[in-house]
């Protein structure tokens, strides 16, 4: 589990949100904004008798990556499943909005989002959802200037509204442990039945929405090992690529005809999905 007192030195997955940022940024360049010592906690969890966390589960820091000004937001997956409430959501949205302003002033600044999240925190439901809409608007503004990179390394994965946020980013980097999908497996099982989606069958879930499958389907840009070194290298590599000429959100629209011709009588296999997603848009 992340943040446990004993962690593998070189693992990225096992680090806490704050340590992940520290390992990602150039040495001694990390400056945290709204530190936990400021005690900006959730006003809504306290009212419901739920123990809060001093950073509300999100760490924001400015720093440099390979010398380039970057703002990083990391979600702590261990706190409330990495769910976003008003404060944690506003931290991410507000940081991205300031990065947009910085670029508009002519000061290049990129962003990295380290996503471990089930999506909206249901105890703050509508304010979590509103914050996610604001995060999405800010990502779309920011990615016009400089890359916005999503990292989904697990163990929680990235679900709900924040999976849409990841999909809006310039680049997505995943590990084998990571999962990326709109609906949490348990929710799909409850809504659609166990035949449709067996949430407790881990190999099945990973075969559909795990990092390897997502990479082989072209839905993410990079598939890496769980090490701090490979995470940093992948992030540097994607920052150097700059703003993509066409964003994935636009490229994906070429798949409409392939989806309309898909046989939807039978269930889809991971292999079919890879083939369809890689070839269906006519972008080999």
């Amino acid at each position, binding site marked *: 589990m992340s943040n446990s007192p004993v962690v593998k030195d070189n693992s990225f997955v096992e680090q806490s949100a704050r340590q992940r940022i520290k390992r990602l940024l150039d040495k001694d360049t990390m400056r945290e904004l709204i530190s936990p010592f400021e005690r900006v906690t959730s006003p809504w969890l306290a009212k419901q008798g739920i123990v809060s966390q001093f950073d509300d589960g999100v760490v924001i820091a400015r720093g440099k990556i390979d010398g380039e000004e970057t703002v990083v937001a990391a979600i702590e997956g261990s706190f409330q499943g990495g769910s976003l409430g008003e404060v944690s959501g506003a931290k991410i949205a507000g940081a991205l909005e300031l990065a947009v302003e910085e670029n508009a002033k002519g000061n290049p600044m990129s962003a990295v989002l380290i996503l471990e999240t089930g999506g909206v925190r249901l105890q703050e*439901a509508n304010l979590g*959802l509103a914050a996610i809409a604001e995060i999405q608007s800010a990502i779309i503004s920011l990615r016009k200037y400089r890359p916005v990179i999503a990292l989904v390394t697990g163990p929680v994965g990235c679900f709900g509204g924040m999976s849409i946020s990841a*999909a809006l980013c310039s680049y997505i980097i995943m590990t084998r442990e990571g999962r990326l999908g709109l609906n949490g497996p348990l929710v799909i099982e409850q809504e659609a039945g166990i035949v449709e989606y067996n949430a407790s069958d881990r190999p099945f879930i990973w075969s559909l929405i795990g990092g390897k499958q997502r990479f082989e389907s072209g839905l993410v840009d990079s598939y890496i090992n769980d090490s701090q070194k490979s995470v940093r290298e992948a992030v540097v590599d994607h920052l150097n690529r700059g703003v993509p000429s066409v964003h994935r959100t636009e490229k994906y629209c070429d798949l409409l005809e392939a989806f309309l011709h898909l046989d939807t009588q039978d269930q889809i296999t991971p292999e079919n999905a890879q083939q369809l997603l890689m070839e269906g848009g006519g972008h080999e």
Partner: protein
Amino acid sequence: MNNSIHSINASSTTDITCRGLTWFELLTKQLDKHSTQVPSVQVADGELAGRACRFIAVVPDLNNHFPRAKNGEVGLLEGIALAREVQAVIKADEQQSDKRALILVVDVPSQAYGRREETLGIHQALAAAVSAYANARQSGHPVIALLVGKAMSGAYLAHGYQANRIIALSDEGVMVHAMGKAAAARVTQRTEAELDQLAKEIPPMAYDLKSYASLGLIDNLLSVESACHPTENDKQLVEQALTASLLDIQPNDIGIARRLNGENREASRHVRDLLKAQWSGD
């Protein structure tokens, strides 16, 4: 429309999934319908108060090619179709100073839940729609969401939540939420009655529009005679409200920061103030 279609959310007893189509048809009666490759995404082009507009709705389609998106859910096809219809407007108006307005009729019970959807990347399909709407707004198209029924979770993110202005009918069946009540009760390990009780003190958890409005996320709440079977008066009221919003949106009004002014969004403002104060580090 077939009245036997029920919303997938079992906690609601009213049949409200037809509202989207009802209002879309009412508002676009005289306009050019424009058929898309996806029947669940309806588009019509016309004018409102002299301004060129594109009306867009997601509606139920019992014959939907994707069986888990028959009831008005936003699925793979809907996400892409929305994106394409909006992108087309952005492209067509690229050189125009007077950008076409987008009017979104919103009645979306949920995103589609299914294996096919997840495997093919429904998150990416919804992102396509989010991206198109936000790009439209950011490039100067007035985007107005008209909430006539449910506006739930990922479906609302994809169709509505990137609007400059949000107008809602003041009616029980109009609801914005992250999760239906029954599912939310399961996930938070509470009963629905407990959720109702909590909602009285925790406005962001409430399912009623008045609490939602206190979050600053609705610009105009309209009292109509009937949200399900709108009258001529209702139509006029809504058209007046849409017109007023159109006139209110100035060319440089392309952000959504105005939403932060809500009574119950103090923490959202506080966090931004702190970030701003600490940003430069001097």
